[in-house]
Each structure stands twice: as C-alpha cells, then as structure tokens.
C-alpha cells in the first residue's frame, strides 16, 4: 500500500506541514469578524493545496457556511490558475538537483499567541469536548440493540472505531505542538495583517513584529527569529473605496519590500448575508494564499534546505568531520556553541537551560531534516535524522534523541522501506520517551499512536493493539481494574487511555483471525476508564459492544460484571427499561457472595422504583420456578380425595374400578357421539364448575437474601365457547417452542377474566436458598375450556414476573390418572356441576389383630348441590370388610351383637337424581397375627353321631391375652357339649401371650329332624366359655346374625378353596376378647375377635356307624351252665345310598393283620381283664404289644359267639338296623366283645357321588365290655 495514501500518510501530510505565524491588528480582526471569522479562520480553508486529480475529497472542517460555499466553488483549489485550469504540482528542488512535484501541500496558519507549548491541563480541556461531543451522538445508538458477532465482523474497518476517535487522536497530537525539541512546528514564515483603517499602517507592521509580542520560541533563541515575513493589508470594501488601500500598499511596497506586500480586499459583496451572492472577493483570498505558498514559502524552504545542507556537509559530512565531531564531543560534555555563527547573548542566556540553540549545528540539522520532511524529501530527512540521532545519543539528550528516532521511523514509513528499521526506531523512541519520565509521557503517546497507525497500515493489527495497550497503560498508571466498582476520583488521563483501549480493541477484531475475547476484554477495560472519567455514554457503548463476546459463555463472574455494569450505567443515564433488562440477567446470581447479591438486588430495585410503574417480566429468575415439579391436581369424575390418596398407585384404582365404571375409551370412541369440537378435547382432563383446580409447584430462592414474593397466582384463560377456544388453541400449538412468549396472548388479556373464574393469590417470603412448594387454585365459574397458561407473581411489590408452563415436552408430570392413555395438557374441560361426595371412616384403625372385629362407619357427605344416586361401593378385600345394612347404623357395637345385629359398613345416600361413582380408598396398614385355632375331630365310638373334638389354641402375640368367649358351630344341627366327666369346657378361659392350650369337647349331630330334641337338651350349637359365675356380660353372641355370618361365608369360601378333605363336617367360630397387653387398653368388650375354622372333618369317617347294645353286667351261675348273653349290634347308615353290611364274628384268634383293638381282645385271657386306661395308652403307643403276644398259644377262648357267624343286612339311606347276636361265656370275668368285623358296600345309584374309597370297606368291632359275675 502506498504509504502516502494510507491514513497515517495523510495524517502526516496534513499535520507535519509548514507553520505560518499570523500577527494581526485588532482592526484587521474586526474586519473579519463581520463574516463571523477570525483572520486565521478566513485563511485556513485556502491553505490546503491539492493536485487536481487527487482522489480524496476536500478536508471537511466545521466552518460557517460562507466558507463551505467557497469550498464547493473551489473544491479543486490547488495549483491552478485563476481561470480554474489545473496546474500540475509545483516543481520543488531541494538538496539534490532533481526537481520533483508535490502532490499536496498544506500550510498551517497559527496566531502568534498560540505558538507556544501548551500546559497539559489546558490541552486536556481542549480534548475533552471532542469526546463529550461524541457523547450526544452516541445516545441514540444506546437505545438500539447491542451489536452481534456478525455485525462486528462484517463492519468495514473505518466504521469499527467511531470517527471521533480519529479526531481525538489528532487533537491529542496537537497538544504537543510547538515543543522545543522538534522544529517542524516552528513557524516558517510570519504573516502580518494590518487593516486599511489602521492609522499609519506601516508603523503598525513594525509594531506587530515587536519582539515583546513574539512567542517565546523566537525570543528564547530556540528558533531563528530571522524568518520570512509577509505583509498583508486588509481592506474592507464596505468601509471605503479601494483606493485608500492601494495607496497604503504602494507605500508598503516602498518601505517593506516589493514582493512581500499584498493587498486583500474582503466583504466586497453589498449584501449583508453574502452567502450566495457573488463573493467576488473570495477568489482573491485563494489567489493570495496560493501566491504565499508557491512564491514565498516553498522557495524559502528550498533555499533554507540548500543553505543548511551546504553547512552540514561542510561541518559534519566526510571522514574528517566525523572524527572531529567524535573527538570534540568526548572532550567536553558541555558543547560549545562557538563553532556556529555567534549569537553570544542568546547562548549565554540559555546556556543553562538548553544547550541546543537555533545556532547549534544539531538544531540546524534538525531544521534541515524537518524541512526536508515537510517538502517530502524523505531521503534527505532520514540521512539528517540519522546523523543527528548519534549526536544526541552521545550527548545523552534523550528527549531529542527520541524525537529524532520518531521522525526517522516516520521517514522509513513514508519511504516504505525496511519495516524492521521503522519499528525499531519507533520502539526506541517510545521507550526513550518513557524513560525520561513524566515530561515525555505525552510524546510517548503521540509516538505510540503513530506507531500503531503504522502497524495498522501494514496489517499488523495485533501488534498495533498491543502498542495501543502499552500507550494506554502509560497514559494512566493504572488503577482502573481495581477501582472498577467504586466511584473513584475522576482522573482525566483515564479518558485518554479509554480511547486508546477502545482502539486497541478494534485492532483485535481486525486482526486475522479476529481475537474476539481480547476485543471484549479491552472494550471492558475501556468502558471502565470511560466510566472513571465520567463519560457514561461511552462506557455503556463500550460494554454493549463487548456483550456479544460473553454471550452464551458460562464464565459466570464475567457475565455478572458486564451485565451489572451495563445495567447500572443505563440506569444512571436514565434509560431504565434497558437497565432493568440487563440487571435481570444478574439478579439470580447464586454463586456471588451475599454482599454482591444484595448490591445487585438493591440497584435493581432502585431502578425499578425509578421506573415508577409496575411492569411484567417474562421468565423472571427470582424466584426460580421448578417446572418439573409442576403438578396439576384436578377433580375429574373420580378424584376427590386427600393429598395422600391422590398419590395412590394407579393400579389399585384400576383394579377396583374394573367392573364398576364403563371404560371411558369405549364411551368416546363412537364418533357419532360427540361433536367434532369436543372430540378435540376428548383427551383433556375434566374439572367442575365451582370446584378449584389446584396446581402445585416449587419455588426456589437462588439468593442468600430473603425475598418477598406476593400475589402468586395462575394465569388462566377460560373460553366459554368452543369455537373461540379452538382458534386460540391452534395458534398455541403452531407456536409451540422457544418463541412461545410471542405467540401467547399478552398477560393483560388474562387479567380481566374475573367473571369466568377466580384465582387464589398467595403471599410468601422465601428465605435465603429456600425452596417452597406452593399450591395455587383456580376456580372456574362457568362451563367451557379452561387453559392453565402459567404463573405470575409480584416480586417485592415492585415488578411482576410471569412464566408459562411448559406442557409440551415429555417430562411433564401431571396427574394423569389413566397412565399413558391420558395426555398431559394444560387444557381442562370445565363441565357442569357434579355431585361431590366426601367420605371418611371415623377411627379407622391403623393396625389390628387377625380376626379383629370392628365396626367401621363410612360417612358419606354430599357437599355439592347435586343429588347422587346409584352409589356403588367396591371392596378390594371382601373377605375382610363386609358392608352392613342401613338400618344398623345407630346400633352400638358390640352390644348390638347380643342376639341382635351388627353393622360393619353403612352407606348414606342423599337426594337421588343422577349418578356417578366416586372412589374412596381406605387401607389398614398392619394386621398382626393373634390366635391360631385348630381342631381335631374323631368319631365317638360309643355313640351314634357323636364326635370328640380337640381344640388347640396358640396365642401368637407377644404381649396380648385373650379371653375365649364363645365357640359356635355354624349350623344348628350340631350341638356342642362338654365331655361327660366335665361340667363344661371352660377349664381354660384366658390365653395369655405365647400360651398354647388344648381342650376337649364333644359335638353331636342332631340331624335335621332332631332340632326339637335339641331344644330340650342341654346341648346347643353355642358353647360359652364362662369366665365366672354371675357375670352379667356372659351372654353369647348370635353367630347367625349378619356380620358374623357374612364373614363366615367369606371364610368358608376362602378356606374351602384350600381344603382338600373329602367331606367336611362343620365349621367352628371362636369368639374371643382381647384383654391386657399394650394394645387393647380400652374396654375389653369392644375388642372382639372372631376366628373361623371351616371344613373341619373327622379323622376317620365311614358311611356306617355301629355299636353294641346289650346288658353290661350279667349275673350267672356258672355251676349250672355257661352263660348266654343276648346283645344287639346297631348299624346306622349315614349316607344317602343303600348299603349292604355284613357282620362276621370270630371265635378264634384273629390273624396278625388285625387292628390294634383286635389284638387287645385277642390277648384277653380267661378271667379278669385289666381295662385300665394305662393299658389302652400302652396299646396305642406300642405298635405290637409284646407283652401280650407271649400268650398266643392259649387256645381256649373264654367266650364264643353262638348265634351266627355271619349276617348280612341291607340298609336304606339314613336308617338303622339291629342285628341280634348271642355270646356264650364260660367263666365269670369281664370280656371285650369286639372280635367281630363289619363289612359294607355302598350301592350307589350314581357313580361318582361317593368317593371310591368309601364304596366298600370294613371295620373291626368297637370295644364292648361285658362283666359276668358268678351268681352266688
């Protein structure tokens, strides 16, 4: 890239130009004032001369319109003739003989009073307006959206940095003008302007160039006072005819010199405004300026260059001079100014301040170099600068050295030669400036800016940005990053560093690849500096531009810092809505410390208050709504229950409901049934007018500070007509997704729906890091479609947050009772009022014993105004819960059982109209085992239809005692009686913990026809275990009453499924009472337990019963004959079939295979036979009575059967027959007449009616003892 066309090139061409010092009289100024301009202002626009084919537009300067018009008219000023024909650049000849042309030339016009070095403070005051001015223009930008990544990357370089920054750079450099060590700012010429109205203009000219008024640079010997002078007489046409001025001019020419005097007539137009009239005098200004430049200044400079070059060549060039120079410098630290043309006064005056006067060779070389630079002879300039730098270095004149290095760096750049050298020069200049301390700081800044611009021109953006950063660091020795948070003392230099940092940031974007993070970081640094220097708009702008860098990156502290500061500064600027938008990003910062959190929150609330009105915030982060915790609890056709019941697993309900309600899918699949509109909602849930739909959701406070949340309520919409709601619905479904907030209707539409539904409002205070679950309610008032859209709340009474529920995604947990069949949607169909039943069971026991008998009262209350009919109840365990009768409600339990009734479950129905079923669920949590009851039944061998029963009771509770109260049979044909020798079976009455008892009793089959008989006898189907005599409470319970009977049937059915016995006889019901122990503290009467043992059967069972009948004692005189005893065998057929039975008697010893009883009888010897019980037991316990088998050889039987040895009888069903038998006994004694056998055969009409085993069989005779005594 051509360095001259680059930004830096143009900058140098415009800034490092010859200076013309202007001296004016007050009257001359006054003449110019008529146009609103000063003399310098008037002349300046014409001081830029450009080649006609130059491509850059004229420099725009903020001048009044009159000059602008001029610029339009003469935009092609430059070296052109008066007719407007372009002239090519003036040929310039410097040291070399080869002339060349200047493409562009500019003269800087400066008042003499301004030719001095400025104080830093004053200079800074001048720069500040540049920045502040840009403030106003930045303001509208701040209201727009912050830039995005694409915007920044696609911006051209020029737009990346605001334009005013370049202006700022220029202003910053200008503060350094007219320094001592640089000569390019030193005036080349002096223009003296005197008005024609002045008295004695000639003497005024002399007075003007009075040394007292001249700038210090000239007076103090830093620069040569002998400069080119040019005299201008200014004539205002309105003040008089031009002749006066012409006279003065003639006079001037004669005294001051022919060529150096000019006349300039202004204000020639008669019109006062003079704007668009023919400004015929303006071309004269241009003409004058062109003449000044081309005929005076440039030739003067050319000449001076040549003179100086000659001088330098003679004194410094060449080997001899170099040696001399070196030697001379070494010899004396203090330079002698003696080798120049003597100006002793000046030298002595400034000897101690400055050893380089304009007469010193160093200064002259410098002037030579600068002039050459200004005339674009960079080669010459560079060679001189190089020469000079070694001198200064040897002299340790660092500031001058740095200045020379800087210029040589620029020369390298303009020559587009070695980049390395250029950079080296700039680097050494920069660091040298820094080394000399505070006086060089500003120079270092300028040098840095040039350096950075140089790097930017070459595309080395990254290096440029680091240079900027270094410069900014020097500009302010930085505290910005530690004092970010507080309002620090306003430091002016931080403003400069801010601007420089911003430029550094821009460079990072421009570098390849763009370093965006660095960009962001430096913008943030710049923003902080802006803020410290009280430029809030710029601070916000810098931060905003950095926002996109940090977006989506979870560098939490960075995000918080950026958003907080942007928000805060917007707030300070009074743009509250944007401020709040940014602060919203940070208020939920859980990772920050308590103080930071409260600071964020306080600022936030402060700005919200400043807004002065409540407003809505979508997805306010405070408090955090835990969406997965969302549960909608509504009452459809089934659900109206406590919270605990709501959570009962679905399968339990399904099981219970199976047969009771028609499946809703079946109902609704018929497309004819519903209108199409309703079918759309067929999967929706149902709620009822006037009943609240509850929504439970968790709120979490992420902060450590308690926050007050009030007016938490639901956002709902209830549309009464189906068409309207379906339209809305379609909108919602299409817009589902992230931009749901846009498609949802505005909040305000939901608010004024008070006629259709009411919502509950809830106020809570969330402590630090607390999570609370809240329940919100909405109560629809009319039928329609109710939509739950979201939740809204008010934070600290200041602002309203709202959030929409996300029903669309899969994770929602809503209370879908029917599992997958019911979709989770936020839409509820509001139906007409439904009857609502409340049901509860008072004193529902949480634990009970097995067999515990309780009265449970189910109280149903219809809370609605609608009647209920057809109430059905389903019990999951009908074995354990038996519904009672309505008439039994008021009975007292268990007294009602005493010969009365007992009610278990009662139902209440109210007004009966229309029905619907409701589910109620009651559960026992625990059932403990109590008593184990078992029965063993044996046939009684001595009586017909009698059994002996052993009852075993085991108490399995660890601590409870039970009183046995009553034992009952299920059927009245059975009678329970005690064993003959005992009064009752009441010997045991209390079974204490872990005790096991047995008792024996007898039961008798009274048969169906013998009920009457039973009435008279003492035998009853109930047997009381009377605890003691005279107890008033010993009434028996009536087991035939409803509850016990019902339970018994259930038990019987259940046990019957398990039992495999062939034939069951009877069932027992044992009723006991719990006493003592830790469980039953209350009245023992209340604690009734009933145990049902069903399908008890006898161990040995045969279809026929038989026993002997006859005299037990016979007295006979054996001396006469043997004794004959007549006995009968009674045989009873107990089955429903014909049986043929055969009786066989034995006289001989039966064979070994006979039963034990037979062995007993076998072993009987003549004479007395011991029939003690002991023997019986022994016989039973030992399989083979060895004791008795020792006498098998005894062949003489003491008695013989005599009537018959065998008899056959046929028995009809349920009849008895007697078979007469006769026995002959030969000697007195007691005999067991059991050696007979009974064989039977069942003649069954229907095969299969009787068990195969029992179709035929046989049995040994029962023992029958006959005692025969010798008759005396």
């Amino acid at each position, binding site marked *: 890239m051509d360095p001259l066309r680059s930004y830096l090139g143009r900058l140098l061409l415009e800034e490092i130009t010859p200076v013309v010092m202007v001296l004016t009289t007050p009257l001359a100024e006054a003449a110019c004032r008529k146009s609103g301009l000063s003399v310098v202002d008037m002349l300046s626009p014409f001081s830029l001369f450009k080649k006609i084919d130059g491509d850059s537009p004229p420099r725009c300067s903020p001048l009044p319109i009159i000059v602008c018009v001029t610029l339009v008219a003469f935009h092609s000023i430059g070296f052109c003739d008066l007719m407007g024909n372009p002239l090519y650049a003036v040929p310039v000849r410097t040291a070399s003989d080869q002339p060349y042309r200047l493409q562009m030339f500019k003269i800087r016009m400066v008042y003499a009073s301004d030719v001095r070095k400025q104080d830093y403070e004053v200079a800074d005051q001048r720069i500040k307006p540049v920045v502040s001015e840009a403030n106003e223009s930045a303001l509208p930008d701040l209201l727009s959206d912050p830039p995005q990544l694409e915007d920044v990357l696609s911006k051209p370089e020029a737009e990346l940095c605001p334009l005013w920054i370049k202006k700022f750079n220029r202003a910053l450099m200008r503060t350094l003008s007219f320094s001592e060590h640089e000569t390019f700012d030193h005036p080349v010429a002096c223009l003296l302007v005197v008005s024609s109205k002045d008295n004695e203009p000639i003497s005024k000219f002399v007075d003007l160039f009075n040394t007292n008024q001249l700038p210090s640079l000239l007076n103090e010997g830093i620069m040569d006072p002998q400069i080119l002078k040019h005299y201008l007489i200014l004539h205002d046409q309105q003040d008089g005819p031009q002749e006066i001025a012409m006279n003065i001019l003639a006079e001037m020419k004669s005294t001051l010199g022919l060529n150096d005097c000019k006349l300039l007539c202004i204000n020639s137009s008669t019109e006062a405004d003079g704007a668009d009239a023919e400004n015929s005098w303006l071309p004269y200004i241009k003409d004058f300026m062109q003449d000044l430049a081309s005929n005076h200044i440039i030739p003067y400079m050319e000449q001076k260059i040549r003179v100086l070059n000659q001088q330098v060549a003679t004194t410094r060039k060449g080997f001899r001079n170099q040696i001399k120079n070196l030697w001379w410098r070494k010899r004396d630290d203090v330079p002698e100014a003696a080798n120049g043309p003597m100006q002793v006064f000046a030298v002595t005056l400034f000897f101690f301040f400055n050893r380089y006067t304009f007469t010193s060779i160093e200064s002259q070389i410098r002037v030579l170099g600068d002039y050459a630079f200004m005339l674009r002879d960079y080669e010459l300039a560079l060679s001189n600068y190089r020469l000079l730098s070694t001198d200064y270095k040897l002299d340790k004149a660092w500031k001058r050295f740095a200045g020379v290095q800087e210029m040589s760096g620029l020369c390298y750049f303009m020559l587009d030669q070695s980049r390395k050298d250029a950079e080296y020069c700039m680097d050494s200049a920069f660091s040298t400036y820094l080394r000399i301390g505070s006086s060089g700081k500003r120079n270092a800044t300028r040098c840095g800016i040039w350096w950075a611009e140089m790097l930017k021109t070459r595309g080395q953006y990254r290096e440029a940005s680091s240079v900027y950063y270094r410069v900014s*660091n020097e500009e302010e020795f*930085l505290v910005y*990053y*530690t004092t*970010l*948070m507080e309002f620090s003392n306003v430091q002016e230099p931080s403003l400069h560093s801010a601007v420089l940092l911003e430029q550094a940031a821009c460079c*990072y974007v421009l570098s390849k*690849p763009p*370093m*965006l*993070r*660095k960009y*962001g*970081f*430096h913008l*943030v640094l710049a923003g902080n500096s802006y803020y410290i220097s009280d430029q809030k708009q710029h601070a916000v702008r810098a931060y905003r531009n950095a926002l996109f860098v*940090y977006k989506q*990156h*979870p*560098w*939490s*502290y*960075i995000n*918080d*810092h950026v958003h907080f500061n942007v928000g805060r500064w917007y707030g300070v600027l009074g743009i509250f809505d944007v401020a709040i938008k940014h602060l919203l990003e940070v208020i939920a910062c859980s990772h*920050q*410390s308590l*103080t*930071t959190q409260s600071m964020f929150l306080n600022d936030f609330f402060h700005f919200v208050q400043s807004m002065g009105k409540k407003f809505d915030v979508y997805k306010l982060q405070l408090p955090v709504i835990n969406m997965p915790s969302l549960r909608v609890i509504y009452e459809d056709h089934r659900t109206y229950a406590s919270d605990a019941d709501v959570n009962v697993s679905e399968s339990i309900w399904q099981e219970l409901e199976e047969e009771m309600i028609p499946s809703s899918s079946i109902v609704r699949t018929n497309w004819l049934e519903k209108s199409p509109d309703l079918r759309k909602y067929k999967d929706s849930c149902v709620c009822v007018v006037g009943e609240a739909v509850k929504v439970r959701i968790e709120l979490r406070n992420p902060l450590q500070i308690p926050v007050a949340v009030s007016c938490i309520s639901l956002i709902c919409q209830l549309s009464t007509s189906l068409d309207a709601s379906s339209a809305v619905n379609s909108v919602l479904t299409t817009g589902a997704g992230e931009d749901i907030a846009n498609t949802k209707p505005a909040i305000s539409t939901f608010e004024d729906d008070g006629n259709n539904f009411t919502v509950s409002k809830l106020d809570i205070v969330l402590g630090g890091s607390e999570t609370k679950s809240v329940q919100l309610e909405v109560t629809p008032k009319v039928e329609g479609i109710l939509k739950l859209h979201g939740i809204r709340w008010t934070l600290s009474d200041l602002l309203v947050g709202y959030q929409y529920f996300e029903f669309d995604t899969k994770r929602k947990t809503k209370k879908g009772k029917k599992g997958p069949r019911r979709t989770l949607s936020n839409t509820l169909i509001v139906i007409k009022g439904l009857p609502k039943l409340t049901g509860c069971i008072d004193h529902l026991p949480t634990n009970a014993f097995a067999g515990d008998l309780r009265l449970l009262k189910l109280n149903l209350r219809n809370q609605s105004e609608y009647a209920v009919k057809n109430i059905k109840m389903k019990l999951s365990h009908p074995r354990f819960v038996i519904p009672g009768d309505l008439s039994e409600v008021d009975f007292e339990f268990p007294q009602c059982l005493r010969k009365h009734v007992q009610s278990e479950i009662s139902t209440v129905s109210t007004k009966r109209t229309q029905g619907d079923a409701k589910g109620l669920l009651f559960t026992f949590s625990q059932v403990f085992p109590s008593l184990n009851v078992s029965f063993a039944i044996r046939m009684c061998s001595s009586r017909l239809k009698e059994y002996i029963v052993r009852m075993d009771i085991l108490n399995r509770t660890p601590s409870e005692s039970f009183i046995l109260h009553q034992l009952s049979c299920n059927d009245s044909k059975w009678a329970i009686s005690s064993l003959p020798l005992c009064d009752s079976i009441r010997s045991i009455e209390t079974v204490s913990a872990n005790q096991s008892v047995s008792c024996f009793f007898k039961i008798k089959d009274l048969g169906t026809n013998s009920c009457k008989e039973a009435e008279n006898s003492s035998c009853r189907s109930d047997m009381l275990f009377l605890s003691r005599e005279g107890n008033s409470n010993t009434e028996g319970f009536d087991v035939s009453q409803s509850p016990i009977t019902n339970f018994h049937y259930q038990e019987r059915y259940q046990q019957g499924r398990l039992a495999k016995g062939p034939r069951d006889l009877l069932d027992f019901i044992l009723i006991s009472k719990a006493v003592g122990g830790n469980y039953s503290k209350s009245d023992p009467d209340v604690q009734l337990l009933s145990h049902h043992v069903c399908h008890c059967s006898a161990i040995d069972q045969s279809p026929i019963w038989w026993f002997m009948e006859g005299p037990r004692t016979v007295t006979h005189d054996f001396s006469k004959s043997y004794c004959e005893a007549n006995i009968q065998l009674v045989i009873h057929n107990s089955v429903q079939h014909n049986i043929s039975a055969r009786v066989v008697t034995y006289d001989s010893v039966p064979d070994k295979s006979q039963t034990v009883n037979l062995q007993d009888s076998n072993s009987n010897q003549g004479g007395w036979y011991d029939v003690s019980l002991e023997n019986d037991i022994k016989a039973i316990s030992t399989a083979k009575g060895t004791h008795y088998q020792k006498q098998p050889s005894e062949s003489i039987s003491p008695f013989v059967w005599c009537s018959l040895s065998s008899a056959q009888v046929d028995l009809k069903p349920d009849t008895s027959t007697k078979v007469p038998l006769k026995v002959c006994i030969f000697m007195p004694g007691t005999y067991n007449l059991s050696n007979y056998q009974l064989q039977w055969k069942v003649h069954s009409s229907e095969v299969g009616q009787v068990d195969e085993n029992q179709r035929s069989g046989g049995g040994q005779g029962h023992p029958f003892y006959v005692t025969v005594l010798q008759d005396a």
Partner: protein
Amino acid sequence: MASMACFAIVSKNDIPIYEAEVGSAPKKEDLAYQHQFILHAALDVVQDLAWSTNAMFLKSVDRFNDLVVSVYFYLYNNIVFFNLMTHARFMLLHDSRSEDGIKSFFQEVHELYIKIFLNPLYLPGSRITSSHFDTKVRALARRYL
C-alpha cells in the same frame, strides 16, 4: 509473601469446567471476575499457539500487567482414546513464579483430571464438582505454587 493464582480448566467449547482461586493471598470478591476476564481473553492467544507448537506446557502465553497466564493443554490428534479430551486446557493465572513448580503442578493436576475423566459417571465437558478433586488441586497448589 502472599501470592495470587487462579487455576481453571477450560473445556473444548471454552467453558470453564473447573475454577479455583488457589493463591495464598486473601481472596477478594472483586478480583474473581477480573481473573476470569484475563483468562478468558488469554484463550485467544492459546488458540493461536495451540496449532503452532507441540509443547504441552506453554509458559506465559499472555500477560496482563504483572499477571501471567500459563497454559497446559493436550492435542492428542492421533490417539482415538483421547479424542474426547482434546482441547481441555489447564490455565493458570499467576504472578511471577517458578516455572518448574508450575509445570509440576500442571502434570499432577493432569493425572487427577484423567482420574476424573475415567469415571464413567462423569460426562466429558461437564463441570467438575468432585470435592475430592478440589481438595487435591488445592493441596497441589500449596505444594508447588
């Protein structure tokens, strides 16, 4: 002497998955975001350097005033197993400190990180929340830094 150091592990997507202020200097709330800023900005430099060097340990890749950023990172380009770990970067922001100590610190933390990484319950790229890891890293920092 109170030293300051801030250690961070930055995942592939420039997300910090672990951060710790490990210096012995008293922790200042204000500085937390400053350190993040510096580390975040240094990622630009690291990104450039990553393709131009084979070294795992890069000392002083970036500096901000007197704070220096050192980086330790992997580029297991060819090893399939470590593909997932590519581009996890350990970044340490410290004031001037011995290079050897920092290098040893990085190597030890690397081992710890691999242990975390091999945990089947750890999702690569997610935040490291293990308190055990945290204590270990802080202990290492006390030893080496």
